[in-house]
């Protein structure tokens, strides 16, 4: 009984001793193994981090398409306008970090020097974020309280022979309002905006005699992780007079594009994962194969096959775990570099990345060690030691 125990103990000590020695003596090989596992793990960590974050990131990029949510008065109601305060309160229901930009709009017909045009009252700060695609010659109106300036559409500017810096008289015949405004910028969108003149909301309210009112509001909301239909329903429940809805044209396309990008990233991540794992495997196979002599020697002095396999696997596991740990750190840093280079923002860390990296890396290393060792243990010690 005691003998068996002692034998087991020496065996255990022997196992650790060989493990330790092997790691210490063969520094060169150990560092190469460590290094290649680390690179593999780093690449897998970096790509999977980017993959799991890509929807959130691209969803934000896709907001370049402008408004994807509409809030307006219900068509059944008598008036076409709602109180600005109500609209602003409903905009505030969107979580701040999800809201890219929003602006209320009010429209009316005014007379300019050379003819009639549609006047739109907007919140310029919100509009600029809402519609990054506007091609503006001159400048955006940057402050909300600027009541001496306006922006006009390109077609309108051409037809009325107006340039940036000119001033234009805005006349509303219904209430006799008249004011001269300086043109700060000329906007081109290719759509209805090209034929409109833009002033800030408060001024538009006074010109049109509808202070504190707005026709509708346009919002740009990050849809990833937000249930936009539920949000619309909540808004309509809180303000029964309002009609809140996602703009199908944009939200439908956003979904399609996001799916494509996610699919592309997924398949690329899987391919890179496979190839990197295989690369690590070939390196490990090369390293273990060259130790056939060592295996022969171990067998000659009495180690059985199982011991040898266990010995090699333990060795690989030790190096592998260290390599994966280092690889994860490097990979996470690499993911940040990727995130900053492409999206200009950091990639968030997700727990799911840990198993995604750990499992294939370790499995591949063990498999890569087991294959050549299994082949090697079948050899006859004398043959190997004689160098054949």
């Amino acid at each position: 009984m005691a003998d068996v125990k002692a034998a087991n103990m020496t065996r255990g000590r022997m196992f650790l001793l060989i493990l330790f020695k092997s790691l210490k003596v063969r520094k060169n090989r150990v560092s190469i193994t460590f290094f290649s596992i680390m690179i593999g793990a780093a690449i897998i960590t970096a790509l999977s981090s980017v993959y799991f974050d890509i929807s959130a990131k691209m969803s934000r990029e896709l907001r370049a398409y402008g408004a994807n949510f509409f809030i307006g008065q219900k068509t059944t109601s008598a008036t076409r306008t709602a109180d600005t305060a109500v609209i602003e309160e409903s905009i505030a229901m969107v979580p701040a970090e999800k809201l890219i930009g929003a602006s209320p709009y009010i429209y009316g017909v005014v007379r300019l020097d050379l003819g009639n045009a549609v006047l739109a009252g907007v919140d310029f700060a919100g509009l600029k974020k809402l519609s990054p695609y506007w091609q503006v010659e001159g400048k955006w109106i940057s402050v909300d309280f600027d009541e001496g300036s306006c922006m006009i559409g390109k077609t309108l500017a051409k037809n009325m022979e107006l340039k940036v810096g000119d001033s234009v008289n805005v006349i509303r015949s219904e209430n006799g309002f008249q004011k001269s405004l300086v043109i700060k910028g000329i906007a081109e969108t290719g759509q209805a905006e090209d034929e409109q003149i833009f002033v800030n909301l408060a001024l538009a309210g006074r010109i049109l005699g509808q202070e504190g009112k707005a026709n509708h509001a346009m919002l740009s909301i990050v849809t990833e992780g937000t249930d936009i239909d539920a949000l619309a329903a909540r808004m309509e429940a809180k303000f029964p007079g309002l009609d809140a809805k996602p703009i199908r044209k944009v939200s439908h396309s956003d979904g399609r594009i996001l799916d494509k990008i996610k699919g592309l990233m997924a398949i690329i991540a899987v391919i890179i994962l496979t190839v990197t794992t295989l690369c690590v495997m070939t390196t490990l196979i090369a390293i273990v194969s060259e130790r056939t002599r060592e295996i022969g020697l171990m067998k000659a002095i009495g180690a059985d096959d199982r011991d040898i396999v266990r010995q090699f696997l333990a060795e690989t596991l030790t190096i592998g775990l260290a390599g994966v740990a280092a690889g994860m750190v490097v990979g996470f840093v690499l993911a940040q570099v990727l995130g900053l280079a492409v999206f200009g923002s950091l990639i968030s860390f997700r727990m799911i990345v840990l198993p995604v990296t750990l499992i294939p890396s370790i499995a591949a290393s063990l498999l890569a060690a087991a294959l050549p060792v299994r082949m090697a243990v079948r050899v006859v010690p004398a043959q190997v030691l004689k160098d054949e």
Partner: protein
Amino acid sequence: MFFLMLRQSFVKGWRRKALATATIVLAASLITALMNISIDVGDKMSKEMKSYGANISLVPKSENISLEIGGVDYNPLEGQVLIEEKELTKIKEIFWANNIVGYAPFLKVSAEMAGSAKRVPLIGTNLDKTVAVAGDDEFRIGVRVINPYWQVAGEWPAEDDAGSVLAGALLARERNLQAGDRVSLKAGTSGLAETFTVKGILSTGGAEESAFVAPLAAVQRLASMEGKVQSVSVSALTVPEDKLSRKARRSSEALDSLEYDRWYCTAYVSAITHQIEEAIPNIAARPIWQVAASEGAVINKIQLLMIVVTIAAFIASGLGISSLMVTTIMERAKEIGLTKALGAADREVYLLFLSEAALVGVIGGLLGCAVGAGLSQVIGLSIFGSLVAFNWVVIPVNVAISVLIALAGSLMPSRLITRLYPAEVLHGRR
């Protein structure tokens, strides 16, 4: 002697060489696939982006400013300028004709609906029609081609079905219309009312939701405006805007002749609108910047993402190959010791290793290209449902890269190994 050694090294150490080649094949196929995809991803995503709808709108050249607010026109223009429908096929005759995905003409009239005082907009358009254009007898046009986001609950009317309409979702709710209902519509001054069957309810998220949409020919007849359309939406594949196109947009006279040629022969949205204006007189072609500019921004992002990922994979596979090279060379210390003991100069040892590495690099690189080309087609088919264009420049680039990496990976261990003393190695101390 040198070739003998080289051959021996491949024949005797075939396992080692096979392993090295396999690694290079893997790495090279990865790089090939990623390079192929990153070169083609712009075109592919540009096609996907077409789901945001048309990016160019054609309107008659006119001095009139529209006074339309929320679908209600405050200045109905009598005798307005219109576009001739038959001229539209010229869109497919421009320099960038192949980049025109489709177009849809629109004619919007205000109609009187029997049993209601309020007038409703009636939009005539091609739903899904094939026309003969230069180089293509069956070119598909219509809103179903360019606006894939239009959804119909019910059925789409057939293009030649003059007795069917789609009712916009808002309009249907307001007037309590359902698929199968019959409506009587009257437009223009002709005073003739015609009965239409509502085939389906249309949701678009746009102004069409409060209008009737009918096949173009039916609306033209109803409004007695045969052969005329008011505006056209064109969907074109474009490349993102850059410095040159912005300069051209400010004024095309500012470009010198070389810049002008380059601008004209690049699929910028501004170049395409310019060419359409050249082809069809009396129209103004305007880019819809909401689609055109945003598309550029998003595609640039995706391309950048792919390039960065390719570089990352490239570095990783480079390091992977180098570490393999290190092991395959280090394990030959004994052999090299013997060679040196027999009188080989360091130079010759280098030459042997480097030519071995180059050979492995060429074989691995070529095989990798083949595997990678297959891989990129798999990606293309599974994500975009179409083949990825194979770019021939990938092959030389890839082989060169594989050889360079293999050489670089061999250089360091070769140096280490030639520094060893033959006696020590042969004795087995190192």
